[in-house]
């Protein structure tokens, strides 16, 4: 029986929270004040199980608790800790997960929370009733059944051992609802809010704001520090910057561009802080393997060799939200490649002239004439798509290719890329948790992965994925992931990596207790945040 350090973890997490490790280590958190922050997108409904936009997790997240969550104090955004779960045990065959639920938790309307509520919420996610949409249901296909044998125990039974089971239970969208309300109306939570989170719902004025106030009966004693929060909806970027400049809002928790950061630095000087991290989001170039020259590996390799990623990093990090070179994992996370590893991959070498010469050679060998023209289909969002598109076109020009860009409006973009209506297109991948099982899934063969828009089949890649998913120790898993990366990027160049996005989160200096993580979907319960001066 393998016991996870659950109790210890939970207690130490509690201690850590109570000490408020946000700002300077020796500062004592103060109670009081209202945190005003900007959210760019409005929630179409309040149901986290149904939606997939940060427009829900950011303003509505504070009202709910999760079973497990990503540790808000972990800058890598990888450590999973208990929220409503006090402790948990995984069975030796890895098919059963047993969670112990905290005692003494109450909903905002006064009803106590018990294990049946957790079961009902996860039933709502994994086995939704007729007419209810659960956005991420497909990710839980390994779950066979959920049981609540007593008021404080929840058991998940899996069909097969899934290494990424725990991360799935820590998903920021898995709000825990009341079983009673779900029984009365499974769609009640789309238009109502009733959770166990650190804040209680006050109002939502469409087009304007969401307001929450402290939950006096929150199960973490002494928290939250704030009296309440106000999420204001400001859609245009320039208005957001102006609002921050005037200190009418204290933070914007998604991320801003380097240009905007410079503006705020100049205007606010010492009163503003920026927390930066690699973003769990990156752009990959999809090459349609079903179209003529791209089926040839040499052409794909040429396209990636032509790109000077080092100059790209230097130049684009000044004007848009990208920065670091990366492979299949967010840099500096557990299974990420080191710079030395990356330099050995095609397209990452420092000698760009040599790379480009080889690219030309490969193109000639593959029979692609000089001046060959194709269209790059890009997504109609300014950052960082526009800059990345312009840069790539410029790089491909230098090996003699004539590339025009077609900008597809975001709404039409999915139809285009899913329908395979492109030669070369800019794809993206975002996640809420850095976990190879979740991140590498996409790149498997077209029969297995719905998100493989390059439409290729590669059995070696599939086998490597399965192997790393079942790896028993860290070292062997790391090696397998490196091999996967090499096969994907270097040997076959199925998908071309660009640069990892870079997250710059601005907040006034007085906002303490909030840690940036690679994902803008997590760390939004805000119970550790406090206002200093």
């Amino acid at each position, binding site marked *: 029986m393998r016991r996870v350090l659950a109790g210890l973890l939970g207690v130490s997490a509690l201690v850590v929270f109570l000490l408020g490790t946000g700002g300077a280590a020796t500062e004592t958190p103060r109670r009081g004040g209202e945190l005003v922050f900007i959210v760019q997108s409005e929630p179409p409904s309040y149901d986290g199980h149904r939606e997939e936009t940060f427009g829900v997790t950011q303003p509505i997240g504070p009202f709910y608790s999760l079973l497990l969550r990503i540790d808000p104090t972990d800058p890598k955004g990888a450590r999973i800790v208990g929220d409503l779960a006090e402790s948990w045990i995984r069975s030796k065959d890895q098919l059963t997960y047993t969670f112990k639920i905290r005692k003494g938790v109450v909903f905002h309307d006064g009803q106590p929370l018990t294990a049946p509520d957790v079961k009902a919420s996860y039933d709502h996610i994994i086995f939704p009733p007729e007419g209810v949409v659960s956005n991420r249901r497909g990710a839980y296909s390994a779950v066979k059944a959920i049981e609540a044998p007593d008021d404080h125990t929840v058991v998940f039974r899996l069909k097969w051992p899934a290494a990424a089971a725990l991360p799935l239970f820590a998903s920021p969208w898995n709000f825990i609802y009341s079983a009673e309300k779900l029984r009365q109306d499974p769609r009640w939570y789309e238009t109502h809010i009733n959770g166990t989170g650190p804040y209680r719902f006050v109002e939502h004025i469409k087009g304007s704001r969401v307001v929450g106030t402290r939950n006096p009966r929150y199960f973490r004693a002494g928290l939250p520090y704030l009296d309440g929060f106000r999420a204001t909806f400001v859609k245009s970027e320039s208005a957001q910057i102006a609002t921050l400049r005037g200190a009418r809002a204290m933070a914007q928790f998604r991320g801003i561009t380097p240009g905007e950061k*410079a503006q705020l630095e100049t205007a606010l000087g010492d009163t503003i802080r920026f927390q930066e991290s690699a973003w769990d989001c990156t752009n990959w170039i999809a090459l349609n393997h079903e179209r003529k020259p791209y089926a040839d590996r040499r052409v794909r390799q040429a396209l990636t060799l032509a790109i000077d990623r080092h100059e790209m990093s230097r130049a684009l990090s000044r004007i848009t939200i990208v920065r670091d070179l990366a492979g299949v994992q967010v840099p500096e996370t557990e299974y990420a490649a080191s710079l030395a590893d990356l330099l050995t991959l095609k397209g990452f070498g420092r000698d760009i002239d040599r790379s480009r010469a080889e690219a030309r050679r490969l193109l000639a060998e593959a029979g692609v004439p000089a001046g060959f023209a194709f269209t790059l289909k890009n997504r109609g969002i300014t950052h960082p798509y526009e800059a990345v598109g*312009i840069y790539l076109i410029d790089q491909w020009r230098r090996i003699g290719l004539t590339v025009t860009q077609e900008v597809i409006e975001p709404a039409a973009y999915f139809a285009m890329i899913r329908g395979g209506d492109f030669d070369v297109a800019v794809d993206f991948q975002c996640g809420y948790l850095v976990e190879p099982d979740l991140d590498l899934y996409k790149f498997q063969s077209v029969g297995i992965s719905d998100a493989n828009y390059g439409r290729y089949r590669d059995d070696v890649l599939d086998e490597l994925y399965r192997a790393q998913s079942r790896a028993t120790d860290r070292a062997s898993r790391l090696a397998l992931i490196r091999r996967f990366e090499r096969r994907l990027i270097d040997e076959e160049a199925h998908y071309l990596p660009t640069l990892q996005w870079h997250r710059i989160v601005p907040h006034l200096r007085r906002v303490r207790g909030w840690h940036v993580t690679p994902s803008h979907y997590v760390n939004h319960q805000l119970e550790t945040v406090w206002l200093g001066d």
Partner: protein
Amino acid sequence: MEPALETSLVLEHGRSWCASVWEFARRRPLGAAGAAIVIIMAVAAALAPVVAPYDPLATDYSAMLAAPSSAHWLGTDAFGRDVLSRIIYGARTALTVGIVSALLGATLGAIVGVGSAYFGGWVDLLGERVVDVLLSFPLVIMALAVVATLGNGVWNVVLAITIPMAPRCARVIRSSALAIRRTAYVDAARAAGFSRARIILRHMLPNVMAPYLVMLTAFMGQAVLLEASLSFLGLGVAEPTPAWGLMLKGAAVDFAETAPWLALWPGIAISAAVFAFNLFGDALRDALDPRLRAL
């Protein structure tokens, strides 16, 4: 001299064309200035490879967002591309789109207007309805539909802009054509056996020539503005093609304070072009017939 008489003299006696142009320039200096600006822009655009100091697509990552200097007179943009060269090449897009859409829109509108006025009856009614519907329809959706189905590109933008212009012209031309249609002269000519085509060409067209010319020049200014707006919204031409509207989004807004030249020059270019077209169009209208005030 009566303005209307001036018009007919110009149109029916070609040899006084040169003299009329000179007269025009002398009496209406603003209009002449407008025309001159347009001509200078057109020449610069045509001779762009000669006039522009750099290749507009050439990036230089060691000189990103550089301030105006002797190397780059108007500075460089976020990719180190020379702003002056991009503005000169951008004139190609702006003027091509402006002139072609205006021509297409005005001509299409004139055809519909004249046809509507001449044939009357259900042709007129149908034409009126179609014009009404198109006039009440927002340009954004129309442009979006064109771009979504046909993609970006100069000619698709031309199509997207022509669609709102044609009905406006149709409406104006129709009223002018109606004024002629109702005179006894046309009925008499018909009774005398003149063919429809001849009546339309010889008698109705000359009368709508004045409002047609005025609408044409007015449209050119509007078309340049619309092209800039559509590019700004992402519905026009796409990067890295140089286009004035495109130069005003993205980095220009982000770096508006640290690199104001990014937003300044393209805005001035657009304003100057539209300004010039409008000045010329105004003066032309004054010269031809101030009664054309409904434009």
